[in-house]
């Protein structure tokens, strides 16, 4: 029945060959605490005015290891146990953009391509001939170019903006699945345990079956 396995594997390969329409930039998502703290800061500076993260509380940021003084600065009067709500009110959003900007708690997992999509979207702005900014990844977007990459022509400036986009993406990837680090760490122990257990069970099986003539 090894043919069966081969047939199944071939099928799986053909499934993964199906890719998204727009070509996405690949990004290595950072998971270390300093990078996430930098990402949180970039997010607060560039996104917090309009976007909410209703499943993330200020205390979660504190637990992530971000400086208490910084978190206090971001939350202002709000308690540590309130979610991170956008600074702009929804009424103002409606007046300015005719829609409420989406919640970003799960955004890193809510689009095909995940973090790659998010990163490519943030750096996907370009100047159209009429002088307004368009986006390669999401042409219908209502969001004005948040990091200003469409008007940046200097190479150093562009790479700085890409770095910011990357760190925001890393932060939002953490926000979408805050236990991912704990999960993979536990997963490593579980794998070692299961491999050892299976090895022992194989020996038990062999031992028991050796009684048969």
């Amino acid at each position, binding site marked *: *029945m090894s*043919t*069966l396995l081969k*047939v*199944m594997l*071939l*099928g799986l390969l*053909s*499934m993964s060959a*199906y890719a998204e329409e727009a070509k996405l930039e690949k990004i290595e998502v950072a998971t270390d605490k300093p990078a996430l703290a930098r990402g949180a800061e970039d997010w607060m500076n560039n996104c917090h005015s309009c976007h909410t993260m209703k*499943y993330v509380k200020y205390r*979660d940021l504190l637990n992530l290891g971000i400086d208490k003084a910084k978190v206090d600065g971001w939350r202002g009067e709000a308690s540590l146990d309130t979610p991170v709500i956008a600074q702009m009110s929804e009424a103002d959003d409606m007046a300015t953009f005719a829609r409420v900007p989406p919640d970003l*708690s*799960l955004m890193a*997992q*809510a*689009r*095909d391509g*995940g973090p790659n999509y998010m990163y490519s979207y943030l750096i996907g702005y370009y100047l159209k001939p009429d002088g307004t900014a368009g986006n390669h990844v999401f042409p219908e977007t209502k969001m004005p170019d948040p990091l200003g990459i469409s008007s940046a022509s200097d190479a150093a400036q562009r790479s700085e903006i890409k770095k910011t986009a990357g760190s925001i993406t890393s932060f939002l990837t953490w926000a*979408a*699945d*805050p*236990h991912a680090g704990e*999960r*993979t760490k*536990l*997963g490593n122990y*579980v*794998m070692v345990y*299961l*491999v050892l*257990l*299976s090895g022992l*069970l*194989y020996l*038990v*099986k062999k031992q*028991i*079956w050796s009684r*048969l003539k």
Partner: protein
Amino acid sequence: MSGPIINWIDKRFPLTSFVKHELTDYPTPRNLSYWWNFGFLAGIVLVMQVATGIFLAMHYKADASLAFDSIQHIMREVNYGWLLRYMHAVGASAFFFVIFVHMARTLYYGSFRAPRELLWWTGQGLLLMLMATAFMGYLLPWGQMSFWGATVITNLFKVTPFIGDDIVIWLRGDYSVGDDTLTRFFSLHYLFPFLIIGAVIVHLVALHTVKSSNPSGIDLKAKDNIPFHPYFTAKDLYGLGIFLIVYSVFVFFMPNSLIEPANNVPANPMVTPNHIVPEWYFLPFYAILRSVPNMFGGVVAMALAVMMFAFMPFLDRSRIPGGARYRPIYRIQFYLFLLDMLVLGYVGYKPPTNPSIVVVGQVATFCYFASFFVVPFVSKMEESWLIKRGLPQGIMELMEREKRDLEERKQEHRRRKGDTV
């Protein structure tokens, strides 16, 4: 087993004799390969799903305005809630994977043949219940794909003659999928696993009546049977270890690979996703549904596609035992069928906007049903070809014995009829 407590119990309940009859003395063919592990694995996955599900239900809120938030509460605030949820979500896929392999093994080795028809049909019933449970469970996270998947599938009942529209409203509890749908799906999603456990017991009673088939297809002599315990408990536990390794890779390292990104967006009746796809295990059947241009025809085709397996004991007319092992043509048919399932799965995954995909889907749907309908003719022709070519001694003997038995039974029947007339 002995001792005063066991003796006390044995006078009141057949504990020792039960363990003896079903485990330590239960005869199992010694030549069973690892493909026979998957029934046991399905049982374990069922237990894991029930266990994780019960704990998830303690934290989940079956309310359209709270459901999505409560999943995030489980993922972020409940101790090891992420583990429970990922185990349950991956477990659903694992369940279908294990069941599909279990069914493929049955088809490959012809284990559905007499006298195991009832075993196969109870399994078919279990598959239907599993599909219903998975479908209802998928609504509970209340994401976009949950909502629109449930909308599309409940809408299919519209094709019921005369009362179609009423049935759809009755199923949903409302004119569209909403809070009433969510609460009833939650209630039934909690009920069905226990019905499945009941049906599994019936499945096992049938199994222990007719005993396991084996790769040779011939009922083995007593000396080739070994007790289930400890031999197959040991073999099944080793298989379980391997299964858990694969399962844990998904749970711990790639749990989101099986969750559609769109389901991380809360359900919104005003926005239809670009492309509504079911979970991978429904894709072949979804492709068949879409391949028939007429909605009524599509629903009938899809329902038939799931039920076709039940007809196999009637369709397979070859008297050669052992399924594909001794039957090269049946083996080719088996692999072509698997290939067709994969093609259908691919078609179900792609949006139907591409006309060539639609044509591929229609051809694959035709092949799906054709591969069942040709079985009676091909199996008969293959049988006479193989007999002419020569079969192993044991198999010829078995076939002759079965033929003799059948003749005798027919004569017996005729004699009795003659007596009464």
